[in-house]
């Protein structure tokens, strides 16, 4: 077992939203109700779930791009959430993020060279020549021509922009990258190019990833372990292959069955899940999944099941598996 690089304990975030017109009301959206996970050195850990399950909030809250309300984020044992300003800045070098939308996450008025050099100026990493050299070597690494330095984001295609986004994350030599749906906005052939690039980084640099995605196929390809989220909580966690080949939580099972597979013989398994994801403003009592769950029992309506270990490395939050344990 390799050393733990990042440990997230009971991370919480509630958004307060004022909405409505003419009479406004204040509502609380519980985006993260205490999630915990660990990422080992060099490991790619996946976070999957549908829109609004809190997976992106988790990625942002642990980097303090959104200030979390509670919990701990330990980076090599040091609490990232309580680190003082100057220390936080040092730690931020080690934790970088790649965003989903390569069109929205690059400043259109800066050249690629400026975008890539800025983090190094901010962190005072070397003089002009050293920074220039670093920018060029990172461009090589992500497969972009060096001439890209002089160009603006609009001159690039979606796949190339995502390479720029990855390059920006790499210039600070991070140890962990939070990749928030990095390939979701791309066409399949381009998606594969970016996945191969990330694969290469994982191997060559020994980078760790928190890989956030709604696409189970992509997660299966990229991540060794995965956690499935539903309405702000982790409902199942374990090795990716085991989870997708033998899902225990009914939600994981539904997600797995609903994920289309490019094989006409597989269509019969397309089971349907009734209803839609409930609102995080007023989540259902007990297990949040019970209104859609085909196996819901009385107990599920009142008591939220604890996430507990059912096999080595596997955890599930479901009353069905309480009894078995």
């Amino acid at each position, binding site marked *: 077992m390799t050393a733990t690089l990042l440990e997230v304990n009971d991370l919480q975030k509630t958004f307060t939203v004022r909405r409505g017109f003419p009479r406004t009301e204040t509502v609380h959206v519980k985006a993260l109700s205490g999630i915990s996970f660990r990422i080992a050195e060099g490991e790619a850990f996946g976070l999957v779930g549908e829109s609004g399950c809190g997976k992106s909030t988790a990625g942002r809250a642990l980097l303090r791009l959104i200030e979390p309300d509670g919990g701990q984020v330990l980076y090599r044992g040091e609490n990232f959430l309580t680190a003082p300003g100057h220390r936080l800045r040092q730690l931020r070098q080690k934790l970088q993020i790649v965003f989903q939308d390569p069109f929205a996450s690059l400043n259109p008025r800066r050249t690629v060279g400026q975008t890539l050099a800025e983090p190094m100026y901010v962190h005072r990493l070397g003089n002009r020549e050293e920074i220039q050299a670093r920018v060029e070597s990172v461009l090589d690494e992500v497969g972009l021509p060096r001439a890209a330095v002089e160009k603006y984001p609009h001159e690039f*295609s979606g*796949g190339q922009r995502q390479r720029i986004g990855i390059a920006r994350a790499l210039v600070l030599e991070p140890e962990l990258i939070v990749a928030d749906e990095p390939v979701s906005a791309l066409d399949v052939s381009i998606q*594969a190019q970016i996945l191969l690039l990330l*694969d290469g980084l994982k191997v060559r640099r020994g980078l760790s990833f928190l890989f956030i995605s709604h696409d189970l*196929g992509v997660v*299966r390809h*990229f991540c060794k372990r995965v956690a499935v989220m539903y309405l702000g909580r982790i409902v199942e966690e374990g090795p990716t292959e085991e989870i997708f080949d033998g899902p225990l939580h009914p939600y994981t099972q539904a997600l797995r069955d*609903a994920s289309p597979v490019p094989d*006409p013989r597989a269509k019969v398994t397309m089971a349907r899940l009734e209803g839609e994801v409930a609102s995080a403003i007023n989540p259902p009592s007990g297990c949040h999944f019970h209104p859609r769950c085909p196996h819901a029992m009385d107990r599920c309506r009142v008591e939220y099941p604890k996430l507990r270990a059912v096999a080595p490395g596997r955890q599930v939050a479901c009353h069905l598996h309480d009894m078995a344990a």
Partner: protein
Amino acid sequence: MSEQAPVLDVQGLTTEFRVHGEWHAAVRGVSFQLARGETLAIVGESGCGKSITALSVMRLVPQGAGRIASGRVLLEGRDLVPLSEPEMEKVRGNRVSMIFQEPMTSLNPVLTVGFQVAESLHYHRGLGRAEARRTALALFDQVKIPSAARRFDDYPHQFSGGMRQRVMIAMALACNPAVLLADEPTTALDVTIQAQVLALLAEVREAYGMAMVFITHNLGVVASIADRVMVMYAGEVVETAPIDAVFARPTHPYTEALLRSIPRVDRNTTELQAIGGQVPAISNMPAGCRFADRCALVEPRCRVQSPPLTMLPDDPRHHVRCWVRGGETSVEALQ
């Protein structure tokens, strides 16, 4: 497939767009037939012309910027291309309807959803207000919008993405169309909702006996809904075949590469293969095969002359546009 006349017969469709004052073909020489009750999936990546094909059938190509340069679109034997706009309005939403990817932008935000569904019943079938409302409510039930009566007078923003798409489907079904064009209808939806909408589409297709053109970039979705597949690349059809043949024996190098580039949830992808390079720009199409620059099997002749769509010798329903992998008999020559 039945022997009767196809409900939709597109012949040699070429749609052009004006780029810097010059007309360039976004869709070139696309032909396909759709039998009654059949689902044809059009697959391809951004910019391959799949949406433009559907918009051309609906005659919704933006005027001024784009035009149908040649070809015929026969809907139940009647050519839609020469129709005037008022004539076309009688066909659209009536005999052929379309649903779009983003239901929020294709519904009118200031009209209630019920009104929008009833509108086409009033317009095309001449139903009175009360009757149109009754019929629209029945449609709401059919597309399984929960507590339809209560939600009938809601506005689109009060609906979730999946529910909006159901409203779109109800609108499209209102006049019992012969052909439904669905342009990436589930792309913006979560997978569990996508599965619901796909199941609903399959169900209403069965119930109404209509033919469907399903446009998507997702080969997984294709596998679960289509009878036949047409793969497009850079504005041209590169392969068409019955569903099983495409997945069992993808023949065009592009189709094959596309299938290899998808990471699968049901098994470990040992080797993920990316397709290098990019789709050529519309204003800068190569002289020969449009896939040549990204193709692993490229030969000198591929760069000289554009290959015809040919029939595979052992399967007359499997057509491929490739010098290397294609057959001897040109499909165009037969028509």
